[in-house]
């Protein structure tokens, strides 16, 4: 009998298990379906993680690695490559694994941390033919970042969720041409900063208030037709744009993955599509908790970790102190905050705008050239912190970016083994050097083992920055 079984070893599951351990639980098991801890973070090789939680900018694999390391330092038991098939009301967990066989384990408390999945073409009903070449952005991300394959050479992206925006940049860096990102709402679903650093940096147009009205191509995508939509989201005739492309990626929303939750009779919340949660992250079944994207879709992994800490502590309290759940429900804000709505209009002459990309806030900065300082720099307003000013000044003179990408591992490979090693520059490099660096990375092949932080290429393309591994293999 375990004190706690955590289903899912991504950012939610790991943080929850660690917190439960810290709060005194002894026998804890994390069940993870993939080969290693980290969940979907392992394929999210871009940066932008950890700014809130670790106060530094990390890539997905680095963020996962920090937690995995902490888990390893404890006596928390981890079963990877293990899939939970059934969960019962009385907290019996059925799991299948090629390593551990079929096991039924029992626990005093359960934390659900299974994450979410992507909405598909079927859920948005995009009409047209049904050829190969239509993938969710996350599936494309797996192909590119883990398996080393390209899902297309000329790509249109429907939906401006963060994964879609991130994939626009990834595909561009890996040699594809991304023709457009098309969003049905009048604002982007993804963060401001991602619109800037994933689309604008690479000259990829974002069509707000547009949607894909037809897919063409019998066996493989050949064309995608997009249209402007009116305020009721109906296509406006006469606004058709035809893109010659061979792939369509979908980034049209995420859905909490709650099949286990439903199967054991936990009450569901129709709005969040997760379980009804009390303020301590407990579900309608006492002793079963949920956190992270299985509870409701979060904008940031950092927020997932924070919620997981709450769930971990509550699970410990339940087991050790027989704590009763509070009356209040967990407040969940489904409203999005910093979304890109296009360039501000009606700016006075001499004034321009810029999105600060330093953190997920994505402040819209105003640059007023009518009020220049002694160095000829415009007066900068709209920033919530002083990093905004620093960013704008740097961006105006010599813009820089940290580049995240991947390099090939040398084969041969075992079944389902990662074929790419995620990497990044350990310092920002001039924007003008990005293309050259991306090209150089395609020529590199490395051997395993490799650890987070290992230098793969020093002083890449004379930028002074090193290419370092962001994963451990």
């Amino acid at each position, binding site marked *: 009998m375990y004190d706690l079984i955590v289903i899912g070893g991504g950012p939610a599951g790991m943080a929850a298990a660690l917190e439960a351990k810290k709060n005194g639980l002894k026998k804890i098991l994390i069940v993870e379906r993939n080969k290693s801890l980290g969940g979907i973070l392992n394929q999210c090789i871009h940066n932008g993680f950890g700014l809130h939680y670790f106060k530094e900018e990390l890539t997905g694999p680095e963020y996962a690695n920090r937690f995995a390391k902490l888990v390893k330092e404890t006596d928390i038991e981890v079963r990877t490559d293990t899939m939970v098939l059934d969960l019962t009301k009385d907290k019996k967990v059925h799991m299948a694994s090629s390593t551990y066989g079929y096991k039924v384990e029992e626990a005093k408390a359960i934390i659900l941390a299974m994450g979410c999945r992507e909405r598909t073409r079927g859920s948005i*009903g995009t009409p047209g033919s049904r050829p190969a070449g239509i993938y969710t952005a996350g599936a494309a991300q797996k192909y590119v970042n883990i398996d080393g394959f*390209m899902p297309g050479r000329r790509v249109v992206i429907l939906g401006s969720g963060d994964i879609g925006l991130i994939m626009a940049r990834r595909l561009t860096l890996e040699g594809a041409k991304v023709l457009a990102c098309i969003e049905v709402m009048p604002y982007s679903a993804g963060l401001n900063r991602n619109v800037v650093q994933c689309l604008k940096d690479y000259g990829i147009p974002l069509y707000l208030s547009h949607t894909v009205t037809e897919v063409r191509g019998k*066996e493989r995508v050949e064309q995608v037709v997009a249209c402007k939509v009116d305020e009721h989201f109906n296509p406006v005739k006469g606004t058709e744009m035809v893109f010659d492309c061979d792939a369509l990626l979908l980034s049209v929303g995420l859905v909490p993955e709650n099949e286990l939750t439903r199967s054991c009779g936990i009450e569901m919340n129709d709005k969040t599509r997760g379980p009804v949660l009390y303020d301590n992250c407990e579900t309608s079944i006492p002793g079963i908790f949920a956190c992270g994207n299985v509870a409701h879709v979060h904008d940031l992994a950092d927020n997932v970790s924070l919620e997981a800490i709450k769930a971990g502590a509550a699970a410990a309290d339940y087991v050790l102190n027989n704590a009763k759940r509070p009356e209040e429900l967990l407040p969940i804000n489904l409203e999005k905050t910093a979304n890109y709505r296009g360039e501000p209009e009606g700016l006075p002459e001499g004034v321009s705008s810029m999105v600060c990309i330093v953190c997920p806030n994505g402040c819209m900065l105003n640059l007023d050239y009518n009020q220049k300082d002694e160095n000829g720099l415009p007066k900068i307003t709209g920033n919530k912190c002083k990093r905004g000013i620093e960013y704008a000044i740097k961006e105006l003179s010599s813009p820089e970016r940290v580049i995240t990408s991947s390099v090939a591992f040398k084969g041969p490979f075992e079944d389902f083994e990662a074929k790419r090693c995620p990497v990044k520059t350990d310092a920002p490099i001039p924007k003008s050097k990005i293309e050259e660096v991306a090209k150089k990375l395609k020529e590199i092949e490395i051997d395993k083992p490799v650890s987070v932080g290992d230098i793969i290429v020093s002083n890449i393309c004379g930028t002074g920055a090193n290419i370092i591994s962001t994963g451990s293999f």
Partner: protein
Amino acid sequence: MFDVVVIGCGIVGSAIAYELSKYKLSVCVIEKENDVSMGATKANSAIIHAGYDPVPGSLMAKLNVRGAHLAKELAQKLDVPYDNCGAFVLAFRDEDVKLLKELKRRGDANGVPGLEILTGDEARKLEPTLSENVVAALNAPSSAIISPWEYCLALAETAVKNGAELKLETELISAKREKDYWSLKTNDGGIDARFVINAAGVSSDKVHDMMAPHSFDIIPSRGQYYLLDKCECQRAKRTIFQCPNELGKGVLVSPTVHGNLIVGPDSEIVEGENKDTTAAGLAFVKEKSVLSVPSIDFRNSIRNFAGVRARSTSSDFIISYADGAENFIDAAGICSPGLSSAPAIGEYVVELLKEKMTLEKKDNFICERKRTKLKALNPEERAKLIEKNPKYGHIICRCETISEGEILDTFNTPIAPRTVDGVKRRVGAGMGRCQGGFCGPNVVAILAKAMSVKETEILQDGKGSYVLTNKIGE
């Protein structure tokens, strides 16, 4: 020289091949696609109709009722998902009730068991999700649902096991009648046959015209569908039809054997095999279906698709020796209830052959098929299975709970998959709510290894439907 060549391996071709393989005959089936069941068979309502719809005395009536009877037995023997869930035909107005009575009359004449007309309240008692506007329903308890592509595959596999040869990616180009046999030219060389059977579905008019004087046309009729997540399955316990009337044929709401909810189809005449979905068609289906079951939550739609029915200029199935051609049998114009009739069509074709040749039954006909399904086992059985072969413990498709072991099994079957969708049709991987978003890359890797080809050569489905364009850097 084959005794019989069957052209096309959809449900009709496979059922004919299955029936022929019971006899001491050399049989070859040619199929232009890279898998069986690639036409209307993989995209339809998946219903084994009870048989109240066809006009008494028609071939459709006779073969539907017989076929539905055979389907039950075959599904059990050949391990095909099948559920005798029953069906309702709904009436919303008094005029509709008259039609229900007509359907019952036809059904009784056709020998359909158990038909009865229920009041709206009686129907709602059995099917609580039904609309308040339902005034009556025809209850057809012998109606069933099936997995059409697995049915086709099971019949084709059994035929192959019993000696029939299946040539995939083999398309008929032309045919020439020699003195006492047919010389068929295909993209993959010549095939000679004493008898030829046309089971080419939507292309059966073209095939007919290669062998015999023109006598019918196929009018491809497209139907569009929604497939909904398993969480919607409680919306219907049985297949719910709407009464066909002057306003249209109506759409159905039905559970599927895989535990989903299927909603559709519309009906629209199209050019050739146009399987596009349209905004108007899908909107029509949505609008009509909620008249029957108002609570369907289309947010849980996981896939839209369209199929093309091989309707012909004849109102009945065309199953006969073609006029003006020797030893050439059409099994054409097999639209609904074709899936229900298939095994009876097989029997009927054999009867036609018997008119011209003596057929002798094999004494060693194999009629069994069993697939390992982890999900269907109890915990003890699962534990045993995984202990014996750990690959069954490695779940590839999380939505449908399909293990690597089950996928690998398919490569040891008489008709191994060649594509990602081929794997999907055989085991169900990628059929669920994420539509292969999670398992797709792993299925591609498994296929590439099993077929000893590069991942970039793997196809999603038909020829040319490559999944990946290139390796990074290439």
